[in-house]
């Protein structure tokens, strides 16, 4: 029987699995987590007893739907929890699983690999107590912990306000919410934002609730530095307000994030070609608009294909599965594809007004990193060393710069430093961002224990 594999069990992966099972196909679903949900609908370990409304707020119903859907599919899929794909060669995935290393052949592959925060380094960002916005959310949802007693939320994007709201609702003393995007940008984006309907209203609600609690909200800011206390942990953050005046806010933790970036390494290793997306400022795996990549049998879905949010991820997960079914000769999927395409097109205007309008990425902040600022937190490479690789060693694209400086060569494989490094390199060279290319995916895409190589793979 042909092998159909889904990588990821977040909103996109779950809907893809559901669609395939309904069509009588039994997919293998590979999940890095111990239980489905992805990051957005992350579930705590089973020993936690928590009210879903407290965990997911407005999204409790949707999260519950997702969880129930996948739990009900469990007998109809081969589910591999706690399993990480670390390489893809030809039509074989190398996977570290609970029971050891495995090689998995696929005939059809749906990549629903999700996204993580897009990071912009600023002074003090490697101090203990500084986390990504997504990380701050994971701490709360998955572990019922706050990242500190008095956190500040800084960066930009819808997640900034959502995470801060969730913390405030959990009783945490949120000190400030500091947004690099100017208020005027949000006003200009308003017509497009309103096309988001319920999603837009939720965002507005979070902002109003934060304001009603008396939490400081500032827009058009620039982060300057996280200040360490005597014990080397976070004691406060220095920032410039929209008029350039220096402000200081005492805090014991910082959540920082500047939108999301897609996890694209596996598509890369599968040989899918990439195109530059000027809105997301990232190279993304190319697809035909229905999730078909340009490698036969590979389909792309969810935020790992392009960041469009959880609701769109469910739709694009179902769409990738229907495209797969259509390609297998199931003509009835054509109608579903048409309907899904329509719904996804409707959400597109809202997404663009979020990404390009209301919460623009502060590329100048990333590009303007001070020479002594550590950009690569794995390998301790500074912005100055990166610039030197341009001036003295003539690095004209990211992979050359990586070879010269070790930036992006560490354990995270450039997931964290990649976006900022590209901005710095482009600025140093005086070329557009797309001209510096992208860090190539390299196996292992996640660290693997040596036993994965030594034990001899079994399938």
């Amino acid at each position, binding site marked *: 029987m042909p092998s159909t594999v889904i990588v990821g069990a977040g909103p996109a992966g779950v809907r893809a699995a559901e669609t395939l099972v309904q069509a009588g196909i039994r997919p293998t679903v590979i999940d*890095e*987590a111990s239980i489905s949900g992805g*990051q957005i609908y992350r579930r*705590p*370990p*089973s*020993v*936690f*007893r*928590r009210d879903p409304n*407290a965990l997911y707020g407005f999204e409790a119903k949707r999260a519950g739907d997702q969880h129930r859907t996948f739990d009900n599919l469990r007998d109809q899929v081969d589910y591999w929890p706690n399993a*990480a794909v670390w390489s893809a060669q030809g039509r074989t995935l190398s996977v570290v699983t609970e029971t050891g290393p495995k090689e998995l052949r696929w005939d059809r592959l749906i990549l629903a690999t999700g996204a*993580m*925060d897009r990071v912009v380094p600023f002074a003090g960002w*490697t*101090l*203990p*107590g*500084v*986390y*990504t916005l*997504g*990380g*701050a959310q*994971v*701490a*709360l949802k*998955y*572990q*019922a*912990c*706050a*990242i*500190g*007693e*008095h956190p500040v939320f800084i960066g930009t994007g819808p997640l900034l306000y959502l995470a801060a709201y969730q913390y405030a609702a*959990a009783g*945490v003393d949120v000190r400030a919410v500091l947004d690099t995007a100017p208020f005027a940008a949000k006003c200009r984006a308003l017509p497009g934002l309103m096309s988001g309907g319920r999603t837009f209203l939720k965002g507005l609600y979070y902002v109003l609730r934060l304001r009603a609690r008396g939490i400081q909200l500032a827009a058009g800011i620039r982060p300057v530095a996280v200040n360490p*206390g005597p*014990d*080397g*942990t976070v*004691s*406060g953050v220095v920032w410039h307000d929209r008029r350039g005046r220096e402000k*200081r806010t*005492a*805090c*014991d933790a910082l959540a920082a994030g500047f939108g999301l970036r897609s996890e694209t390494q596996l598509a890369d290793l599968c040989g899918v070609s990439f195109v530059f997306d000027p809105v997301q400022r990232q190279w993304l795996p190319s697809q035909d608009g229905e999730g078909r990549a340009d490698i036969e049998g590979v389909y792309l879905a969810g935020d790992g294909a392009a960041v469009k949010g959880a609701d769109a991820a469910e739709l694009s997960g179902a769409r990738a599965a229907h495209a797969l079914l259509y390609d297998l000769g199931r003509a009835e999927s054509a109608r579903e594809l048409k309907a899904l395409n329509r719904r996804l097109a409707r959400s597109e205007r809202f997404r663009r007004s979020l990404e390009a309008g209301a919460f623009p990425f502060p590329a100048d902040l990333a590009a303007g990193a001070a020479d002594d600022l550590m950009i690569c*937190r*794995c*390998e*301790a490479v500074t912005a100055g060393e990166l610039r030197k690789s341009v001036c003295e060693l003539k690095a004209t694209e990211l992979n050359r710069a990586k070879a010269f400086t070790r930036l992006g060569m*560490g*354990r*995270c494989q450039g*997931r*964290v430093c990649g976006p900022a490094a590209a901005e710095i390199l482009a600025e140093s060279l005086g070329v557009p961002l797309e001209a510096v290319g992208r860090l190539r995916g390299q196996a292992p895409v*996640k*660290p693997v*224990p040596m036993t994965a190589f030594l034990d001899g793979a079994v399938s």
Partner: protein
Amino acid sequence: MGLAGHSQGQLRRVAATDRPRIAFTLDGALLEALEGDTILTAILTNSRYLRRFEFNGEPRAGFCLMGACQDCWVRQSDGMALRACTTLIESGMTLLTRGADGG
């Protein structure tokens, strides 16, 4: 600037504290965690950092908490490396903030 009176750990529990307690050791000190904690949570509810950075010794306490940034690897006393944010704590674990080789 600065805040007085923060708890000893970096992370602060806000709910679900009615779980069974688990004992583990960190750099030889006997500490307590709750069942269902990740190693990261277990350490950071007791401490402000969980490892020292290889290149300059600065303290690190994880970053992305979702298995992507790889900044929270710690070691067991037997040398086994564990990603703290995605591995659940088990009773009796003996964890080290510096590598088992002391590096």
